[in-house]
Structures are given as C-alpha cells and as structure tokens.
C-alpha cells in the first residue's frame, strides 16, 4: 500500500503574523516558513505505518510556490520516499487543492491519503473532507489514533464530546489532530540523503485543474486589540475587582 501525504508550506507556528497596512493580507516577506504542524504529524504517522510493515511507500506532495520544495525536502528528510511538487504562485483554495490531489491519487492509487486537519494560515479545515467527497471515499478526520485492520482502517477521532471511533473501508482519507504522534526530527545524514531522493515538478494544468479562486479576499485587518487590564496585589484585591466588575 502507498500512502500519499500532502504537505503545505506555511508561516512558522512560532511567528506572530503581521497584517499589512494596506489590508491586502499578512506580510510573509522575510518571515520564517515551515511545514504546517498538522502535516508534519501526517508525515510521521505515514512513516510509522511504513515502519510497521503496513505500507510500502510514502509519497509527499505539495501544491505551492517553488520554495515549497523545501517543505518537501523536509518530508523526504523525515523519511518519505519521493515527492511531487505541483508548482503555482497562485494561492490555491482547498477545493482546487482537493481536485489536484484527486488527480494525483488516480495516478498513484494510494491506500491512504494522510493530511493535516487544517493549515495554520487560512485555518480552513476543508481539504481532506473535500478530497474524500471527490474520491467518493470515507474520511477519518481529526485522528488521534490510526490502526490498519485488514481491508479497513480504524480511526479514533477527537470530537467535541470526547473520542469517537469509526471503521473505514480502504482507500480512505485521514486528517490528523495534535495528539496522534510526536513528529521526529530529521537527522543530518537523512537531510543529506533527502537531497538525492526523487522530486517531480508538475503544474496544476498537468492535472487539468482550474485553480481560479472562488472566494475573493477584499480586506485583511488586525483583530480588535484587547487592552491589558490591571495587575492586582493579592487574592483579596482580585476578589474585590471581580465583584466590582459584576463578574461573580
């Protein structure tokens, strides 16, 4: 079985995003970029399935600018076998990403497509579900445990009420939540080795997908700033202040 792992290049999660003053977006010039943290978890889980003998090959794919190669090299350094970059300078929306991934899945025929539940830039939380719909396959979203089980996969999902378990027939789409695993760091020798692993470059047109956006962002602004309040001396002052505000 192959596992396809889509990864996205996003602002590093430790960087505080700054909104551009002209309202056109978030300033990404000279900002540290990294692999979306949820996608790192997806790469790790795919590698663990391979190491457990449940999968033969892990293929990383990224849709984005030429620099998304770096993100793919990170996946390769972690242990993915090969990579596909679908290069475009457009901001590609989840629906178009899902269409491209569907075309790649038709070529590669993976048993599982494993991807992060959301990207920390647009916070959409859509791509995996959309891909599952387009492929007419089941989806195990927000996964905290994944077990291959014969011709199916059992996925434990983090839901509002606790933990839900579903059984999916393969092929299936799994989206990863925070507690699925702790991703490994790539070792230096593996980083060197990753440079020699195959990386194919394609374009959205190669897959016949129109990436024209359906949503137009007309403005991006700072959220209302919350003013820091008062630092109180002790618990008595805290209780008094809570009462004064009518909070209790």
């Amino acid at each position, binding site marked *: 079985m192959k596992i396809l792992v889509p990864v996205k290049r996003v602002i590093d999660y430790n960087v505080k995003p700054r909104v551009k003053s002209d309202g056109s977006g978030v300033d990404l010039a000279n900002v540290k970029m990294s692999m979306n943290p949820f996608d790192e978890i997806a790469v790790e889980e795919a590698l663990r399935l391979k190491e457990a003998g449940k999968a033969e090959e892990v293929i990383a794919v990224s849709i984005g600018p030429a620099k998304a190669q770096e993100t793919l090299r990170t996946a390769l350094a972690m242990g993915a076998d090969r990579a596909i970059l679908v290069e475009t300078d457009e901001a590609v929306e989840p629906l178009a990403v899902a269409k491209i991934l569907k075309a790649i899945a038709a070529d590669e025929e993976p048993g599982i497509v494993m991807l992060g539940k959301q990207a920390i830039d647009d916070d959409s939380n859509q791509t995996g579900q959309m891909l599952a719909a387009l492929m007419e396959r089941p989806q195990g979203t927000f996964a905290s445990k994944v077990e291959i089980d014969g011709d199916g996969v059992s996925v434990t999902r983090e839901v509002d009420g606790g933990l839900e378990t579903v059984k999916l027939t393969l092929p299936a789409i799994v989206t990863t939540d925070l507690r699925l695993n702790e991703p490994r760091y790539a070792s230096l020798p593996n980083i060197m080795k990753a440079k020699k692993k195959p990386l194919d470059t394609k374009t959205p047109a190669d897959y016949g997908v129109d990436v024209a956006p359906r949503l137009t962002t007309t403005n991006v*602004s700072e959220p209302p700033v919350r003013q820091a309040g008062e630092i109180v001396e002790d618990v008595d002052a805290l209780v008094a202040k809570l009462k004064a505000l009518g909070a209790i």
Partner: protein
Amino acid sequence: MTTLVFAEPHGDAVADATLATVTAAAALGGPVHVLTTAAGDAHAAIAGVEKVLVADDAAYANGLAENLAPLIAGLMAKDDTGYDAVLAPATTTGKNVLPRVAALLDVMQVSDIISVEGPKTFTRPIYAGNAIATVESSDPKLVITVRTTAFDKAEATGGSAGTETVSGPGDAGLSQFVKLDAVESERPELTSAGIVVSGGRALKDGETFEQYITPLADKLGAAIGASRAAVDAGYVPNDYQVGQTGKIVAPEVYIAIGISGAIQHLAGMKDSKVIVAINKDPDAPIFQVADIGLVADLFNAVPELVEKL
C-alpha cells in the same frame, strides 16, 4: 433565497450552537429551514425558523459525513425546493460534514464566519485569529460554518415551524460508527458555560490539576478547560482543550491558571468578557489580554481564592 441550517446533534434537545447558527442564517435575509437528525419538535420551536426537516433514517444517527453529505447536497440541489445556502456550527460535526457537502456541490466553503457583511460577504479569523479576513464568495450556492461565539443565540421557544420527514441515499457503505467514549460530567458544557476555569502546564500532573482546578470550578459553577500543554501532558482529556485547534469559548468570565498564553491558546478565549490570569511569571503573555492579573504562585493563590469567593 432560502437558507438551510444543519443542526448540531444534541440528543432530544437543541444545542446552543444551533441557536447561534440560526441567528447567522437569518442574517442572510431569507427564510430559515433547519435539518435535524432527531428532535424535530424541539427544533420547530426555535424562533424564526420556518420549517424543520427531519432525517431520521438510522444511517444519519451517528453523524457520519459519508452518509450525511449526500443527503444535504441533495436537499440543496433540488430544482424547485433547493437551498441557496447551508450553514452549520463550526463544531467537530459541522467541520467534518460541511466541506464534504461543499465539494459535492463544487462550492468553496467559507469556514468559521464571525459576521455576515452582505449577501455573499463574510468575515472570518485567519492565522489563529491574528488577522480577520473579509471574503466574498462567487459560487452560486453558499456553504458556511459558523463560529458560534460570534452570534447571539436565537430564542429556543416561540417558533411554530412545520416539520417534514426527509430521506436521502442512506448508508453509503463506506464507514461505520464503532463507539463514542464520552466524558461524562455534571458540569456546564465548555463552549456554553458562563464561567470557565482553565489550567495549564504549571499544574504539573492530572492529580494536581484536579486538586486545584476542580474546587474553584465547583465554587463558581464553572466549566473546566485546559491549554494544549496540559492536554498533551495527559492531565485532562482532549475535549478540554481551548485554542486555535481546540474549542473556541467566550464566557462571561475566563480564569486562566498557570497558562502562559501562547497565541494558539489566546485564539480560543480572547473574546471572553472578563479574563482573569493567575501566573507566577510576570512576563507571561496572558497578562497582555487579562483584565485582572495576579502574579502569584497558583498553589497558594488558588486555594485562597476558593476560600474567599
């Protein structure tokens, strides 16, 4: 235009998240219909709802997206009685099901809206709430999830909608519900509680978390939340997590104990009315958003607070 709300499953009652979503749906201007898998009569009583569709086939009972998405997409696409928009709360159910509906309709979903600015224009937080985007859809139909803390709840009573049973393709045969390990609690639900007491990594372990956070929550009748660090370390279950990827809360009072205030955590609670922070590090970022801050060792301050409240 007529708008459909996909109700949050909530046993034989109506979820608060559904009430807030009805308010968002009404802001689009057209009549509002509600689709529910149970409790048709309770949903028919929501003020402002014109009609309730009840899909009571067993295939829809467990919220499986593979079964629900074709049902919803089918209702949307009907020639004569179709819908121009579908909204669901951005709960784990809504987030699971609605993008699947959007893809079936070839529509780009608008996720997690916090306001309705026009017939096809909305605002939504991006980058963990560090920016607010205004987006306009060019799709013929709208598929939207709603950040429920941003909308007032519709009145749960006073409405008298008619109910109608609907059916769809049923079981898609792709997935099976196995079980739900629910956390049983007598406490108010985290996302709708008036007061939330949250603990962070500083609580050390599960036992200490329980020993210090629970009495304070009991005294205030509060729900209990946690930072990602506390959940990752196993102090409390996953459904306690407040933040960008956990639950979004906006209670009257949010009390953060031993939480430093990473941007991912602030994203989940900074719309709370009053924020109280207790932390021994005076430079903790949580103090930049707190209305009342106390720089103190929580192991002394929290028991004293419980005593003096």
